[in-house]
């Protein structure tokens, strides 16, 4: 039993959301701190709720190892050692585990599990097309990520699984991946492809396709494709069943989606698009996290007037300030220099204010408002160790 219900949460906080769900899928455009946010949420759940939490990154760029300060955690789940927490001055009540997705390894494992016999298994693993699919193919990555999530969840080892995903345009693929895989294996075209070669040219319906395909790809390549699909077909039922189960898991009540964005116009539009897609697919939009938001002191209108007047009167101010500065350090009395510093301070304030005000405007235009809407301030340092993740985590928590 997860120990997570004794916190102050409930509806409307990340605390409550993470205490009541079993799967949290973090999604959003690239460059908004999604991976870090997913890791921070997992750290918080492990530390505060006393749960056994797994953070699983499916991102090809392997950023989670960086974010957690761990090198080389691979496809296998790996416990973040208590010493690491102790070193950061944190006493976790639960356990934090992490894993990254190695697409090739996960595909191999899937084939070993699903293959009807040893011979089919070996032939598939040795097939050149299979090796290409497993190694490179982007969408196979999306599918295998969902498959892996399903597998881990079904094993029931964790109270909470936090999944990081590729950027939104891919994340849509990632939502569609199980269905697409099922469609793929049930398609008529696939059956065409695995028709024995001789009967192809006899069949009136498929003849034009084969004529063109032969000319484009060459007969040998088509034979490779056929062999691959014939082998794969032996796993047809397994794949279709599995894809459907994975799809069901995503729309299950125990699963929620957290959309991460910044308040920059382009990422925010993408995030909104994704949030709308979730809603229209009847998936649970648990929260929107707005990251890297500039501090509120940049938005004061009194400060604007002050910055303007300091900028205009920098020389006069510098002369009057000079005694106070030389009192601190006698070498700092150069009034031109003081004036330049004052001018830069004022200019810099006005510059950042433009950005800060636009952020608030973007926020007010947000078209989708979920139960949990969290704003995370801009941190002036990178957050990639446990302490940093806690700092971020505390911001999203209540």
């Amino acid at each position, binding site marked *: 039993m997860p120990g997570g219900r004794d916190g102050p949460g409930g509806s409307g906080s990340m605390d409550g959301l993470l205490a009541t769900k079993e799967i949290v899928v973090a999604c959003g*455009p*690239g*460059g*908004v701190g999604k991976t870090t946010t997913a890791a921070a949420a997992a750290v918080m759940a492990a530390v505060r709720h006393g749960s056994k939490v797994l953070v699983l990154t499916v*991102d090809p*760029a392997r*950023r989670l190892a960086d974010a957690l300060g761990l090198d080389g955690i691979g496809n296998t789940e790996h416990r973040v050692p208590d010493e690491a927490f102790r070193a950061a001055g944190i006493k976790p009540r639960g356990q934090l585990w992490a894993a990254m997705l190695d697409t090739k390894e996960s595909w191999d494992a899937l084939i070993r599990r699903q293959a009807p016999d040893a011979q089919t298994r070996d032939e598939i693993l040795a097939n050149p*097309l299979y090796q*290409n*699919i497993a190694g*490179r193919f982007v*969408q196979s990555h999306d599918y295998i990520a969902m498959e892996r999530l399903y597998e881990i969840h079904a094993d029931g080892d964790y109270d909470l699984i936090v999944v990081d995903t590729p950027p939104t*345009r891919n994340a849509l693929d990632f939502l569609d991946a199980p269905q697409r895989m099922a469609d*793929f294996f049930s398609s008529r075209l696939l059956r065409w*492809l695995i028709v024995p070669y001789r009967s192809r040219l006899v069949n009136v319906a498929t003849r034009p*396709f084969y004529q063109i*395909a032969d*000319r*484009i*790809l*060459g007969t*040998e*390549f088509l034979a490779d*494709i056929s062999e691959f699909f014939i082998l794969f077909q032996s796993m047809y039922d397994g794949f279709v069943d599995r894809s459907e189960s994975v799809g069901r898991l995503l729309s299950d009540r125990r699963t929620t989606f957290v959309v991460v964005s*910044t308040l920059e116009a382009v990422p925010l539009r993408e995030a909104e698009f994704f949030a709308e897609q979730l809603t229209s697919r009847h998936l649970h939009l648990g929260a929107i996290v707005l990251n890297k938001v500039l*501090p509120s*002191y*940049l938005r004061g209108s*009194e*400060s604007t007037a*002050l*910055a303007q007047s*300091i900028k205009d*009167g920098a020389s006069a*101010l510098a002369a009057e*300030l000079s005694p*106070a*500065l030389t*009192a*601190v*350090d006698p*070498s*700092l009395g150069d009034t031109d*220099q*003081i004036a*330049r*510093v004052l001018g*830069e*301070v*004022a200019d*810099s*304030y006005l510059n*950042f204010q*433009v*950005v800060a005000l636009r*952020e608030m405007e973007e926020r007010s235009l947000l078209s989708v408002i979920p139960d949990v809407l969290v704003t995370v301030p*801009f941190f*002036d340092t*990178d957050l*990639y160790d446990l302490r940093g993740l806690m700092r971020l985590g505390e911001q999203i928590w209540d």
Partner: protein
Amino acid sequence: MGWAGPMNPLLDLRLVFVTGKGGVGKTTVASALALFASQRGKKVLICEVDARGDVAGFYEAPPTGFVEKEILPNLFAMTMDTEASLREYLKLHLRIPVVGRIGPLAKAFDFVATAAPGVREILTVGKPVYEVRERHYDLVVVDAPASGHVIGLLAAPQAINNLVKVGLIRSQTDWLLEILSDHRTTGLVAVCTPEEMPVNETVELAARVKDETTVQLSAVVVNRVLPELFGRQEERVFDALVAPEPSAKLDELAGGDAGPLLDAARLAVTMRRTRSTHLDRLRQGIDGSVPLLYLPYLFTRSHGLRTTRQVAASLGEELGY
């Protein structure tokens, strides 16, 4: 033309792929590069690989399709569409005219492409390379997939070569490879920001480009570089200014609470400092022969033609024009 300094040879290329981690301004840089080249009198095509992208928006032009359209003087834009590309491919290279609906064939092709990665990529990469081969443009800029996926695109002709032994598609990969591998013709530009993760990914990308493709990394564009507020001595003045007495004096003289201004300046200084450590890592992680181009942070958070023009101007300066 009487230039004193050496100019970066980037614009001498005829095919430039622009990639980068999501959110670093990849499309902004691709759009700005194409705009700058067109302003220099080159006939330019910008080709957007992601059909859901919005390159046209960066020029405030209506959305583009597979057919190239002149959206600014000398600047043409198109959006990749695999089905349309297949149709064109069949007609131009295989002399198979496809009349009427291509839907079923494209769908069939989709399945083949699903089984044989590289086939779809060939169509995506084939179109811009074809435009280069036919010399329809002086420069083709490709707004390529993000750094995680661009390798698959650039390595596709080689992958197909290894996978497909005979057939027309095989014979097509030879000229694709030839153009992609020619470092005087084709180059890759990686965009990043001076932040932890983008720098890591760029360093990783540079190594993979070298190991897994024949394409040359021609430049790394470092986007959103913050201005340096203070020199060394000025920084000492600033540090003294935030001490209790001088800052109280400033409040009194200026007639208001200058605290937020000083806080903001300190934030700007810290941000710049953190970023410069990442820049150092970038310089160490990238082969010294790859030029780094720096673009300033724009304090607008706006986007559209005005921003694209600003970035194009900065890029031009960095290129030595």
